[in-house]
């Protein structure tokens, strides 16, 4: 062994370690299921954005001469009971799905996390009240809660957003509160308090950034579950009004024509399953990549 050989020997010590970001990417996209999930999400968002360009027909155009037709060259997936093109409706349905996911998670996330932050940081009776309120919300079956709120508020997509937002809020609040409680005990937070940093400063420069990784996973998963929940509501005919194309409502109206064209119910269902599954897979991938210790926590 000569000196020269040793100089070309791979570097030892810390600098050789794989960087955090590389590790993240490697774990995240190391499995084809996560790649598949990412692909489905990107594809759906693309379809939602360019629905007018992609859809062969106007999704709401009634054509009474072509009711419940089986798939053909003209209508690739056939038509529904009002002669509307199924493919076009499924394409337009992605717009509702994507928007519901995003808006609901925003509402639930912002309100839930703020309340969780307050409950965790200040504690006391305010914290107790907030957390018990969340316990109460969580003990109501989500579907029943959403149903009740949506019905009481009256129809329309905005009401659906609110109803779903409230139903999805408690998990964020709990998770945030729990994270804050554990982070608060860290020395650097105490130090910040000691040197007289204000509440707002401590919360937003020390607590929130550190509480975020598990919440990030939660958000990804909930994007999918919000879509699932909206589908349940629109399946029951509550919330978004016809003739707007939503996947849930399409499954519902299709069930009467199962023998003539089962695709009417099956295709929108497959779209829901694929998209929700995609968010699940990506959420799982994120969790493993961000912090393996989170396994099983969420």
């Amino acid at each position, binding site marked *: 062994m000569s000196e020269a050989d040793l100089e070309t020997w791979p570097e030892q010590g810390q600098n050789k370690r794989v960087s955090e970001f590389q590790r993240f990417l490697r774990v995240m996209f190391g499995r084809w*299921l996560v790649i598949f999930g990412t692909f489905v999400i990107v594809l759906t968002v693309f379809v939602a954005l360019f629905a007018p360009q992609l859809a062969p027909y106007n999704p709401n155009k009634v054509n009474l001469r072509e009711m419940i037709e089986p798939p053909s060259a003209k209508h690739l997936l056939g038509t529904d009971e009002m002669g509307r093109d199924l493919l076009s409706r499924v394409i337009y349905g992605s717009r509702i799905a994507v928007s519901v996911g995003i808006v609901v998670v925003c509402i639930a996330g912002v309100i839930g996390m703020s309340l969780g932050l307050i409950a965790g940081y200040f504690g006391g009776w305010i914290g107790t009240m907030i957390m*018990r*309120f969340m*316990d*109460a*919300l*969580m*003990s*109501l*079956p*989500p*579907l*029943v*809660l959403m*149903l*009740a*709120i*949506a*019905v*009481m*508020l*009256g129809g329309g997509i905005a009401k659906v957003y609110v109803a779903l937002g409230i139903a999805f809020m408690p998990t964020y609040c709990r998770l945030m509160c729990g994270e804050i409680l554990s982070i608060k005990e860290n020395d650097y937070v105490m130090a910040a308090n000691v040197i007289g940093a204000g509440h707002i400063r401590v919360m937003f420069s020390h607590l929130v950034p550190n509480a975020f990784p598990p919440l990030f996973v939660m958000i990804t998963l909930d994007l*999918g579950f919000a879509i*699932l929940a909206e*589908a*349940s509501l629109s*399946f*029951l*005919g*509550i919330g978004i009004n016809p003739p707007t194309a939503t996947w*849930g409502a399409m*499954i519902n109206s*299709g*069930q009467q024509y*199962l*023998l003539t064209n*089962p695709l009417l*119910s*099956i295709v929108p*269902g497959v779209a*829901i*399953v*694929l998209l*929700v*599954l995609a968010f*699940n*897979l990506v959420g*799982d991938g994120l969790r493993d990549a961000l912090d393996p210790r989170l*396994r*099983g926590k969420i």
Partner: protein
Amino acid sequence: MLSFLLRRTIHTIFVVFIVTIISFLLLHIIPGDPVVRILGAHATAAQIEQLRHELGLDQPILWQYIHWIWNVFHGDFGKSFIYHEDVGSLMLERFPVTLYLVSISLILSTIIGIIGGVISAVKRGGVADSLISLFANTGIAIPSFWLGIVGIYIFGLKLGWLPVQGYTSPFGDLWMSLKQLIMPVFATSVPNVAIVARQTRSSMLETIQQDYVRTAKSKGLKQRVVLYKHALRNALIPVVTLVGLTLAFLIGGEFIIETICNIPGVGRLLVRAAMNKDYLIVQGGVLILGTAICIINLVVDVTYGLIDPRIRYK
């Protein structure tokens, strides 16, 4: 244990109290005048006035709450505007059907989910693990109502093996009752099996890495004993809490299936009431279900204490 029990009970009472407030407030988030919304635009002023008085809406809000909760304690949830019947008795009539279906789904799906999760964790990385994990991911993503419809299409309409819909009491015609049960129970159970299997798998994997599992191995115990005696019992602790949470989720799926399969349970009642804006039934449903789930969660917590001595002896 006693103090643990006491604390949990007080906690539950407090949460139930908040559930009553939420249910009470539901009627007050109706935009505009709920009485006009209930009676419709054609109601006379006298009718409106009478209903307003009946509901106590002409009183201050705190008094309204006390009045309402007093009635609720006496089993009076108000009258349905569609069925013209007592909300309480409407619920009570349909409750056994829903309870029957939900408990079968819950028990079945929990057992299957735990078995699946354990197999998946023990055979980590194998074919069984891949299949179970894929199922667990997909199962959560499948809307149970869609599964119900696809099931009806395949097994009811195409193959003709199962009845398309309906409900028969198991005390009347057991065989028919079971046949009608298969589809709804299957549809509501699939997502739940997935959730339980997922949780069991990850909790089992975490437990297997614990020091005490290594200690058990170092004593020369059979792998079977190490896994199913030492690891599983610990791994089940988080699964037990999950069962309380999934119950609420399961009930949601169950309610939609009731409307699809035309089963005369609380779910169908509630969904129809919602579609027809029968507000008092919805309100009563929220209150009763919320309270029931709180109580079940209390029971789950006590069970939790039985499994985990660290809680029992605090």
